[in-house]
């Protein structure tokens, strides 16, 4: 744990959510309609206790539940040129970005962090669907590159949680160029002999699926996640027929051989810890060994923020 004291302390504020506490303390399950107490839902990592529907979770919330002791350090991501095309549809891109920042409290659609998962050092990148649909622009490309570089530097595995409606159209061709850019990032990790694991979450579509999200050494998806290149509406318009039930959902992809596993969010942490330890030839850990998030000694109490 020495490295944590070395690296974490100056930036420990990454522990705390910047999101505002919602005014309404109840939330309705998108799938079964059950009214859920906000606290109950967030304790369950936004999985409905009634029907197990997986609702979106922010990368910051996910990381708090993923890394040992809820401790992680944000990996800095270089800022790209803002609004490289001077794009404007009915609204200016610069304005859309500002709104997304205000709404989410995040700077961009991908958060990169490092910490330990079950005692094993790992770098994680999480895509934030609530930030402009998680769309992949220069910033997401830079985040993937920063994550890959940090993984190589630390000789640590890289785990990516994908979630995106596709490319950031407002960056035009430069968003398309993130497909080769992020692919180069994946190649850096693979060529360093390090595991690259992808967890596909709802929804992962378009150029994101067609680049780093489908190149994992191990491909895991959350239950019910929509995973596709072309979305169901585009396909229905093209072929003029209704698509079968469950088409392009995680379970359907698993059946068609496109995924290794579909894993419930509550089991994901243990499963990732196990897979990463197996791939890096680390010794096994008995189940009780895994420090649960929040139990870790030395985790600062809320309000410790300097």
């Amino acid at each position, binding site marked *: 744990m020495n490295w944590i004291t070395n690296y974490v302390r100056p930036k420990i504020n990454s522990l705390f959510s910047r999101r505002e506490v919602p005014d309404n303390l109840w939330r309705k399950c998108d799938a079964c309609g059950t009214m859920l107490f906000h606290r109950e839902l967030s304790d369950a990592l936004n999985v409905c206790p009634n029907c197990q529907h997986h609702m979106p979770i922010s990368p910051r919330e996910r990381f708090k539940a993923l890394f040992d002791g809820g401790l992680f350090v944000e990996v800095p991501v270089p800022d790209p040129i803002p609004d490289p095309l001077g*794009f404007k549809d009915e609204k200016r891109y610069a304005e859309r970005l500002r709104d997304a920042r205000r709404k989410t409290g995040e700077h961009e659609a991908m958060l990169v962090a490092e910490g330990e998962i079950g005692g094993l050092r790992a770098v994680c990148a999480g895509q934030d669907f609530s930030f402009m649909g998680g769309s992949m622009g220069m910033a997401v490309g830079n985040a993937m590159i920063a994550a890959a570089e940090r993984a190589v530097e630390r000789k640590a595995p890289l785990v990516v949680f994908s979630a995106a409606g596709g490319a950031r159209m*407002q960056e035009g061709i430069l968003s398309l*160029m993130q*497909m080769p850019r992020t692919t180069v990032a994946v190649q850096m990790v693979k060529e360093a002999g390090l595991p690259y694991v992808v967890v596909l979450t709802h929804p992962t579509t378009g150029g994101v699926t067609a680049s780093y999200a489908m190149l994992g050494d191990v491909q895991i998806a959350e239950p019910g996640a929509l995973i596709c290149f*072309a979305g169901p509406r585009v396909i229905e318009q093209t072929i003029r027929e209704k698509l079968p039930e469950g088409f392009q959902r995680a379970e359907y992809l698993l059946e068609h051989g496109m995924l290794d596993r579909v894993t419930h969010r509550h089991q994901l942490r243990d499963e990732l810890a196990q897979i990463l330890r197996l791939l890096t030839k680390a010794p096994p850990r008995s189940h009780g060994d895994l420090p649960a998030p929040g139990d870790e000694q030395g985790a600062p109490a809320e309000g410790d923020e300097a």
Partner: protein
Amino acid sequence: MRNYLEFEKGLADIEGKAAELRALARSDPQMDVEAEAEALDARARKLLEELYSDLSAWRKCQVARHPERPHALDVIQTLFTEFTPLAGDRNFAEDLAIVGGLARFRDQPVVVLGHEKGADTKSRLERNFGMARPEGYRKAVRLMDLADRFGLPVITLVDTAGAYPGKGAEERGQAEAIARSTEKCLSIGVPLVSVIIGEGGSGGAVALAAGDRVAMLEHSVYSVISPEGCASILWKDAEKMREAAEALRLTAQDLKKLGVIDRIIPEPLGGAHRDREAAIAAIGEAIGQMLDELSGQPADALRQARRRKYLEMGRKGLH
């Protein structure tokens, strides 16, 4: 009978009149129409110059999609010798939307790949209008591996509206196939030269275009999404495609300024479809020069430089 684009209507009228006059004169040798016809020719030429000297982004999309524009097989049959098509992905099918095989370019053995849209109704249907399914991209991966194994440069001719959005294509892993093809472009230790000859449509184009050198024909386009698609999503109105085309900066000229492509290949007056031979010859010149720039480099240096090129892309904006 020439296909005129919507914005070429005035041109169609003038050229039509000239043709009518000459037809009349043929049926009645007494008539002397040549002076009048030549005046019309001159007017047409002047109008063509005006129209094509300042094409809007949307007009360029139309030119790029012109049915008589030279397609991949036209380019291959003119510029390459001993073209030996190689078929199939070895898993499921042969996808005719992507053609590829061994050939010689100026005596040098190469692997050539391209999206082929087809030239008539039958071939367009067979080739799915150049919109590939996973098998097309898996064939491309296979042929790039072949090139890598035998040290042959790869030349790709990009011309697709995008990868096919179909049920089977999705079931068989369209996204994964595109990702692997892009990855292969970035892995091979032989030169990879790409030319966008018509439409560079989204991921389906990138999968063949992540090369050491990328050139575009002067009036071709390369974009993350079609103007129609972008308009319907961002403007909530597919009819706003002109605005979307403009905003997306999808022209060769803008892409060169952004550092996304390396060179622009000039087209004959009135677009590649008006003088296909000249357009194809210009493509050949560009491919030759780009291959020369890359020749003699060791595999690892090529790979490193290619990856650096993409990592560094987007350091400049366009305002």
